[in-house]
């Protein structure tokens, strides 16, 4: 294994002049009489590798570097960003942000106010062992090439692809109240896919390994036995799984009981709970783009989201979550809290503006406090309310996945995510998966093909009869959650156990395509 353990802020970042730029920008904003100003300096490194059929197709490095000034002035937001790292440019960008706020004030009828936050001086680094950027590209590419070579050894596999996405994110935040935070985090998303044909049928089988807030040890192994994935085992297994899938019968559409593995259920949680409990959506601020939410604020404390076994938390502190960080992009210390308890809606995800509007949600000293969900994906974008790690909790003494399957007379076991779609109020959704097994009299009875499950959010969670125990709980997630205008991308994790759902609508996707 190459690379070295790295748990200090990258000197290449700390050598940059962010402190002086921040003081210049904030000083100028204060001179112009703003009510609030914050300065955010970011360097985000990306490296993507792609291999197809044993050949490295792409190895590219990208770095976003720059800073942003955001002000509240005359009751309006003003935002501007720049890339020239001089005090003069920081002052100019601050002046631009103020002038934008002056334009915006003409069209703002509800003055912007922010929930207070204690002053923080902190340095925070995420939990990882090996900085993936310290590992030679050739070493990482060799792993991907090896995966595709081994996958193509399977009789059913015509082609194989593998990829590795890596991110190293550094942020410095400062505001007029005095908060100064410097942070660093790493995230990693490796994966592969095998493709094959049988007659005129094409299909694929992909890795179900989730993206993680870990370093290269996730691939190469490390001291934490839970910190790496069994890549060799999965690479060996996938060709046979693909062969079985290509030969599997097409599902008969109808109503089935489902046992859903965490590798699939995380995405259903993301779409039907995570986005639905973003307060900005519930209050209409995403209505023109990502949409609103059926979980409107007037239903807080009364909306029956699902059965009493449903307990969902928001958490930006889980050690390896993709949305985990110490302080958010508004200088708020991150937290964990309940969103759904005993099946009832009890919480939302907040930023400082939202927290100020609904102070009863997260009170601190008699005022509302953000629960730390502001995030911007680059120095060129304004922070918005983004998703915490939203997770379904296991039952403390809950059953194993096999025991859940054992409770099903006629059903389907769903593993791995694939296609996903949900409406703009988070009612109606449709998901597919990597593989679907028929359950007959409590036992798996081989794969079936062409399956999608379709439901309405509260019907689906209202049909959840049981959740598995802690031994079934896994942390899934995504690198590419989109939201806002201009569009931004965020990474987020979702933990969940296996779970049992009764009477869910199953579609046959071949029939859906017919006419």
């Amino acid at each position, binding site marked *: 294994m190459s690379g070295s353990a790295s748990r200090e802020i990258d000197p290449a970042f700390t050598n940059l002049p962010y402190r002086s730029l921040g003081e210049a920008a904030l000083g100028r904003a204060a001179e112009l009489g703003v009510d609030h100003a914050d300065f955010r300096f970011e360097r985000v490194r990306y490296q993507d590798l792609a291999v197809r059929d044993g050949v490295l197709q792409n190895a590219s490095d990208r770095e976003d*570097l720059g800073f942003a000034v955001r002000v509240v002035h005359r009751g309006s*937001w003003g935002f501007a960003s720049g890339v020239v790292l001089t005090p003069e440019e920081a002052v100019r960008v601050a002046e631009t942000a103020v002038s934008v706020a002056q*334009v915006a004030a003409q069209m703002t009828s509800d003055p912007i106010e922010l929930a207070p936050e204690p002053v923080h001086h902190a340095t925070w680094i995420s939990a990882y062992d090996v900085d993936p950027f310290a590992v030679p590209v*050739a070493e990482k590419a060799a792993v991907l090439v090896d995966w595709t070579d081994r996958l193509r050894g399977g009789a059913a596999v015509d082609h194989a692809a593998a990829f590795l996405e890596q991110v190293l994110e550094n942020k410095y935040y400062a505001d007029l109240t005095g908060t100064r935070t410097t942070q660093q985090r790493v995230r990693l998303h490796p994966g592969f896919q095998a493709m094959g044909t049988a007659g*005129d049928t094409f299909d694929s089988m992909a890795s179900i390994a989730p993206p993680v807030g870990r370093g290269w040890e996730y691939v190469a192994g490390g001291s934490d036995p839970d910190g790496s994935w069994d890549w060799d085992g999965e690479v060996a297994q996938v060709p046979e799984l693909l062969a079985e899938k290509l030969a599997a019968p097409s599902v008969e559409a109808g109503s089935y009981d489902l046992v859903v593995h965490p590798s699939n259920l995380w995405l259903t949680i993301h779409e039907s709970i995570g986005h639905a409990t973003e307060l900005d959506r519930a209050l209409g601020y995403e*209505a023109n783009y990502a949409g609103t939410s059926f979980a409107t604020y007037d239903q807080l404390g009364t909306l029956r989201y699902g059965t009493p076994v449903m307990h969902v938390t928001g958490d930006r502190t889980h050690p390896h979550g993709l949305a985990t960080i110490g302080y958010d992009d508004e200088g708020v210390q991150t937290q964990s809290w309940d969103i759904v308890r005993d099946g009832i809606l009890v919480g939302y995800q907040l930023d400082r503006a939202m927290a100020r509007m609904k102070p009863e949600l997260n009170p601190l000293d008699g005022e509302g406090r953000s629960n730390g969900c502001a995030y911007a994906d680059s120095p*060129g974008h304004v922070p918005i309310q983004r998703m915490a790690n939203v997770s379904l909790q296991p039952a403390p003494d809950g059953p194993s996945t096999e025991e859940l399957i054992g409770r099903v007379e006629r059903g389907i076991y769903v593993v791995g995510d694939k296609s996903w779609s949900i409406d703009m109020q988070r009612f109606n959704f449709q998901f597919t998966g990597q593989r679907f097994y028929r359950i007959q009299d409590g036992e798996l009875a081989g794969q079936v093909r062409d399956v999608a499950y379709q439901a309405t959010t509260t019907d689906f969670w209202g049909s959840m009869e049981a959740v598995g125990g802690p031994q079934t709980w896994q942390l899934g997630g995504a690198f590419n959650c989109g939201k806002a205008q*201009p569009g931004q991308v965020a990474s987020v994790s979702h933990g969940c156990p296996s779970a049992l759902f009764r009477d869910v609508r199953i579609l046959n996707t071949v029939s859906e*395509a017919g006419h």
Partner: protein
Amino acid sequence: MSTSHSSRAGRGPTPQAFVEHAIAASGADACLVVVRDRSSANLRWANNTLTTNGVMHAVSVTVISLVRIAGGIASGSASGAASSTAQVTALVAAADAAARASSPAEDAAGLAGDVVSADWDDPPVPTDVHVYDAFAPALGEAFGRARSADRVLYGFVNHEVTTTYLGSSTGLRLRYVQPTGHYGCTGKTADLAQSAWVGGATRDFADVDPLALDAELAQRLGWGARRVELPAGRYDTILPPTAVADLMIDAYWSAGARVAWEGESVYSRRPSGTRIGERVARPGTHLWSDPAYPGLACTPFVVATASSNTSSVFDNGLPLHRTDWIRDGELNALVQTRHSAAMTGQPVTPAIDNLVLGVDGVEGTTLDDLVAGTERGLLLTCLWYIREVDPQSLLLTGLTRDGVYLVENGEITGAVNNFRFNESPVDLLSRWTHASATVPSFSREWGEDYFSRTATPALRVPDFNMSSVSQAL
């Protein structure tokens, strides 16, 4: 207009200076440099008030180094924000090192060379918040008008100008200025029970009137005075140009030649081969891209910062011309790099940043004509959350959004609930029965972030698969 390449009034070196510096600094056997100067300004509103806004400026530099190694030519690339030549020097070093550590590129090919844009020396073209000097006050007036009429407006406008400079050690010096703008506004009744949307693309906002948008939203919300609940099923459905754009972009993005050749797409003839030459649409149906299409002009040469199944860094600078993807109902071309073209034995037809769908014999026909000719059916507004379900049929799922209207005896008679659909856009091209003339359109799903330059007709499809009802309003 010419300018010095060395500096710009305290804002750092010019893009051209970055290009020349990178090429001079590179120790690779060949080098490509892409500099993008991008400025943008946006306004966002909700609940009849402005919510966020921003003015951004960024300069990004991508250096692609090519080196001869045992077995062929390897490439490596590095990209980053740049405001100094020192930053570019670091990118060159990273790209050179990446290339030397890489393996031979399967798409290796000779670079284009010795082509210089007449405007190469010109500076980047900026935009700023003043692009809304006329729009912003009118938007404020629209807020007031909507508030007084119990409507709520939510929307977003964005204008950006990207000036791209592509240089190479083989003599490419190409420049292109791409203005991109779009607007979208959702209107709701005060009780949030009805919703409507209007949106489109623009190059300069001179043609966008917020008061006119509000008036159109008011008309559409008026159609919702009568509410009709309909079950899932197959409906005679009129897809307006924006919804057709939503679907055709997916059809285009799935048209990579390599994956088709290798059996993995709707355009495959399995186990190996493509459907080029096969009928995939009704006769008279044409799908094409053309960088010179009026109103949708886009970069007329290849700019590729990374290689993939549908792009090759070695193809940078190749000229782009009109490419017919579907000609008179037959699949005529797929998205080809030189590498995939050699694999498939087809002409080189790289991706182009616009898309046009046209139908013969419908000149002068409008969306209103399609409505007038429909006895009973649905008129959609736009589609949302479109995702691929099955690549071999290109089955897509998604939802209707912000206005499904019932058409009876040629007139709109009410608003219908939303639906989830399951359909293949390629299949729709064989099933449509009526079409309007092609007009500028804008995909609500993909236009804002990825692909805004489309022109499409409205299409009427007799048996559009509304798989289930969506309760969303």
